[in-house]
């Protein structure tokens, strides 16, 4: 545990000193919410919680895809990675450290969205709702963490940034995070239910009442899929580097 904290601290220090990472991943979800949907949320109090939760999902997905996808793709190419392997620490500790930091960043990014909404709309979550939302957010976060790890191991450092961005934006749109699913254009509406982003959003929306087992099940399938991709990618990388 102590070692996990040490690795988390290293990761944390590196990321907080990277404005190019920090500002977009932490600030953009709240910024987008303010620009595109705050007015609507103020005018339609019943829709506000759904919009806010969409942006919470958007925030969590951003942190995980970039911190894991881009981060791993960049780091695994460096000699420093080889050096870390010579230090007596299990690989699991490094992943755990990274996950811990991701949770912190995701909380900040999501909290900024909620803070904007709380400050300027009638939004109110009961304690029970907040707890259910937090649990569902964590669960979805795990799925996208695995997605990020898979991207990190299958992309080169150069391709990881555009690919992560593309997936992030396309899936957010198709998943109905910016425009409610009912208002998506026909082609997007058709693929929407098959995107992990939509299922994550469904899970969060349902957490306002009874969490949807259907969304949770769909996300579990995505988790297995991304987990397998990540594991194969990880093994492939290990074989190439340490053969």
């Amino acid at each position, binding site marked *: 545990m102590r070692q996990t904290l040490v690795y988390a601290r290293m990761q944390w*220090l590196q990321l907080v*000193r990277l404005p190019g990472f920090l500002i977009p991943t932490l600030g953009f979800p709240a910024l987008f919410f303010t620009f595109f949907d705050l007015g609507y949320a103020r005018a339609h109090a019943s829709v506000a919680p759904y919009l806010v939760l969409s942006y919470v999902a958007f925030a969590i997905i951003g942190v995980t895809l970039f911190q894991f996808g881009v981060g791993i793709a960049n780091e695994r190419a460096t000699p420093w990675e080889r050096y870390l392997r*010579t*230090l*007596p620490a299990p690989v699991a500790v490094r992943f755990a450290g990274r996950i811990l930091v991701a949770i912190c960043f995701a909380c900040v990014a999501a909290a900024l969205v909620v803070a904007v909404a709380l400050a300027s709309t009638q939004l109110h979550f009961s304690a029970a709702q907040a707890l259910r939302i937090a649990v569902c957010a964590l669960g979805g976060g795990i799925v996208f963490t695995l997605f990020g790890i898979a991207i990190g191991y299958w992309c080169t450092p150069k391709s990881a940034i555009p690919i992560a961005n593309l997936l992030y934006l396309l899936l957010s749109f198709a998943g109905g995070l910016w425009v409610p699913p009912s208002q998506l254009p026909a082609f997007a509406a058709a693929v929407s239910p098959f995107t992990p982003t939509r299922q994550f959003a469904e899970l969060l929306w349902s957490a306002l009442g009874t969490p949807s087992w259907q969304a949770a099940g769909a996300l579990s399938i995505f988790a297995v899929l991304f987990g397998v991709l990540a594991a194969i990618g990880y093994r492939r990388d290990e074989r190439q580097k340490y053969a």
Partner: protein
Amino acid sequence: MIAQLVDVRKNYGTRAALDGVTLGIARGELVALLGANGAGKTTTLEILLGLRRQDSGTVQLAAASTGVTPQETGMPQNLRVGEILEFVVSHYRTNRAQEVLEAFGLSASVKRQTGALSGGQLRRLALALAFAGEPELVVLDEPTTGLDVEARRSAWSYVRSYVQRGGTVLLTTHHMEEAEALADRILVMSAGRIVHEGTPAQIRRSVTAKRVTYEGAPFDPAAYGIEAVVESNGSRVTILTPETDELVRAMVLNGVKFAELAVSEASLEDAVLALTAGPQ
């Protein structure tokens, strides 16, 4: 034995990087792997550290902890010297962070991010990291490449003090001088094999060969009982021999035509050539 390799082989594609390497390092010993670039030194270290897998042969590492120098090029640029050191030390039982900062002249740079360090400072930080946790075995790949003379001397003196405390070191170098200054034992590597092994004194004796060059026809010193390796490239002849005086005398007495005769110290490549091609 704190580390042992037995008949280790490794191919990169069709090229044999290690062609049956056997070596053992005892606790408290300082061993230098000496050889030209491409001789297989780095591959040997990587296999010992588990960064590469051998094709065949056995590797045993009995050290409870090892210290290694990272490559300077890949250090996280936005971490400070002190932070990296603290991070690395956290993996070990002993903390000598303060001591290595001083020993490697980094005390004034503790608060600087590694991205702002010079090449020499990065190199010294890399060395400091290998020793900071006082591991049982320190493995150094070309430890002082890129250091100025003064920094090299202080690095050497720290390595010595570490060994005096009971530490074990395996290092690679292509500087004869470095191997001589530090090592209890030198292993000379060439083309993936250990071709010679001995104390610095023994090695020095076997590589006292000097390089004699001249323009003219090749000459066979063996016919006069002189131990030598002869190479000719066009009209340029190079002879490696420990018996330069006898060689020149024999050439003059036998009327060998030569011009621009020069005698110089053998380079390491010459030494390795002499050891591999010599008559032992």
